[in-house]
């Protein structure tokens, strides 16, 4: 054999070995477990998508500091879905077929979860949903689990605490005005509100919707005021929440209870800008820096880390709305992977379905359609806010939890006008 032939033989043998190694998908200890997702990093929902990403990154870092999952480091693979549902199928196809991710979670929000459901079902994947409202109602896919604590009846979850509180007041309010944006979440919330109005025997005096691009809300608020309602329930997105609240003060709308489903009031920049205008508003929420929540193990450490990184990431500086739940979502997934000692999608889903999880938002148990077995949408009331300082919102007393009873941290100031003084 000539020297050239020897070299060729060695080269061919090396290539064969390399090719063979590539064909055998053996996970080595150092191979990362890839967690893939699309996320709204630009576009309309990015104000929540970016903080959600930061929370997932913090979880990844926490897990990796402790040695990873199954002894392997966790790696995130994510793409910007631009808050555009049409990008979702392409993103997840790439994640699964090209990036070969081991696990997936959804991006933020109902509209971005909807196009992901058929993909997860077709490939029999475990899908963790991040703040989707009733996404699984039609599909009833058993391997879908959703972290927003809406509970088994998502449609009434936003409003139930609001109307239950209203019904308990003495004298009981009688008339209701409901108003919301022409968009998916507000419409769902209004459907739930109508059902609850019937259930509690209130009388509807105003029931209208408005386009999300509305600029001036004073004509709407004036029309509501003309019907003289005892209760005003608003289902809105952040710009309209601010518009409605400002207009209510400018027009002098003072029902006995005001608020309900106003997204955005809990965002730090909105809270600090609105300041005392928030006083008295009773609104849904998921988390508040009140004693029952701060007592849950791990949440203080998480918030400390989140707040340290928030400015650089250009996201909500306090992170009291979505981030603890985003972290909890991947905590559940991580705990299920560890418990099943593998990445078998069916085993992971079976485990999540059957067990209760300890997370930084408390104990999480999933029930019908992958929603929380028991709903925990809070009703909070903004109280005693003065000025625009951010520090007043860090601790208890400004966003008092009124509902549900097991998380209650204070009493309602009733009627609304009394809280404005």
């Amino acid at each position, binding site marked *: 054999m000539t020297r050239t032939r020897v070299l060729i033989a060695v080269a061919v043998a090396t290539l064969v070995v390399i090719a063979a190694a590539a064909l055998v998908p053996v996970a080595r200890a150092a191979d990362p477990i890839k967690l893939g997702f699309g996320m709204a990093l630009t576009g309309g929902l990015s*104000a929540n998508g970016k903080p959600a990403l930061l929370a997932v990154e913090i979880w990844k870092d926490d897990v990796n500091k402790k040695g990873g999952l199954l002894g392997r480091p966790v790696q995130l693979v994510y793409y910007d879905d631009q808050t555009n549902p049409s990008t979702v199928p392409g993103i997840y196809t790439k994640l699964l077929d090209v990036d070969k991710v081991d696990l997936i979670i959804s991006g933020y929000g109902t509209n971005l979860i909807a196009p992901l459901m058929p993909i997860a079902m077709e490939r029999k994947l475990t899908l963790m949903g991040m703040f989707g409202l009733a996404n699984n109602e039609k599909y009833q896919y058993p391997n879908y689990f959703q972290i927003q604590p809406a509970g088994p009846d998502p449609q009434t979850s936003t409003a139930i605490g609001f109307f239950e509180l209203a019904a308990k007041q003495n004298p009981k309010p009688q008339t209701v005005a409901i108003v919301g944006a022409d968009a998916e979440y507000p419409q769902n919330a209004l459907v739930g509100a109508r059902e609850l109005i019937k259930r509690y025997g209130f009388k509807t005096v105003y029931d209208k919707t408005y*386009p999300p691009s509305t600029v*001036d809300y004073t*004509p*709407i608020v004036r029309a509501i005021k003309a019907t003289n309602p005892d209760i005003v329930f608003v289902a809105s997105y952040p710009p309209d929440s*601010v518009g409605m609240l*400002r207009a209510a003060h400018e027009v002098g709308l003072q029902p006995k209870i005001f608020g309900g489903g106003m997204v955005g009031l809990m965002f730090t920049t909105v809270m600090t800008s609105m300041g005392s205008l928030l006083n008295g508003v009773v609104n849904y929420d998921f988390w508040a820096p009140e004693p029952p929540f701060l007592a849950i193990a791990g949440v203080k450490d998480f918030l400390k880390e989140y707040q340290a990184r928030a400015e650089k990431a*250009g996201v909500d500086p306090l992170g009291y709305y979505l981030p603890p739940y985003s972290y909890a979502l991947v905590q559940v997934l991580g705990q299920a992977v560890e418990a099943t000692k593998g990445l078998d999608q069916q085993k992971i889903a079976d485990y999540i379905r059957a067990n209760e999880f300890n997370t930084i938002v408390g104990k999480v148990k999933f029930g019908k359609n992958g929603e929380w077995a028991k709903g925990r949408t809070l009703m909070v009331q903004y109280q005693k806010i003065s000025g625009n300082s951010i520090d007043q919102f860090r601790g208890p007393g400004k966003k008092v939890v009124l509902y549900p009873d097991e998380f209650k941290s204070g009493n309602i100031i009733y009627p609304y006008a009394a809280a404005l003084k």
Partner: protein
Amino acid sequence: MFSWDLLANAVVAGVLLGGFYAAVSLGIGLIFGLLDIANIAQPAFLILGAYAAYVMNSAYGLDPILAGIAFTPVFYLLGAVVYRVYYGSFERRGQESLRGLVFFFGILFIIEVSLSRKFGVDYRLVQAGYIGKSIDLGGIGISFRYLVPCLVGVAMTLALYLFLARTFYGRAIMAVSQDQAALRLMGADPIRIKTIAFGIGIAAASLAGALLIMIAPVIPSTDRDYIGRMFAITVLGGMGSIGGTLVAAVILGVVESIMATFFGPSWSLAVSFGILLAALAVRPSGLFGR
């Protein structure tokens, strides 16, 4: 539910809203209406103006309107540069129609993403003593948050109208929109005139953006809510008519307000644009079009 009180309030609120719409649409009235340049990026400059006001307000406590005025020279220069690039790359080569549109789309996205990278995606608002206050004049409530932008909008319209009618450069801008070759024969450089006009159009966005952030919270993608309204007002008013822009803006404002008060706010935009279509069917050149 009808009452004269509600109607009067709706009309006043609509007029105030219209004044603000006029401020927002003036830039596009000049650039699209007079120069015939489909500057799709104008709403992005508007949001850039809103962020400039936000920065000056949150960092130095500067009144948003003063901040908006302070930034007009910067925006003017920015506009001049953008026009020169547009002219050199597209207009001079006769490729302004489709490729020029893509150019402005590109600028819109670049501004939006740059703002998103720099400021994040939190909603931003400004503080000023008059925001949130209102007065009651015989049962008619007037919010300062809308009154101030309306007055500024009317003042901007008047200033631009006088500039175009009474000054050499103003008349040259009117001339360039009618006959570029004739203007050249008169010894004026049409490209320079168009650069000035484009710069003024973008400078108007600085002030209008400051008004916008006084009224509503802003994120980088807020610009998308305004594209339709800005072009609709310009077209309804009549291409190139600055006074027409104000009238069209007030019409849209009042219609939106009355619809929101009496017939359900979800119809307000549909009816506004319905009026636009009807008006164009009767007068294709707009209410005050030449």
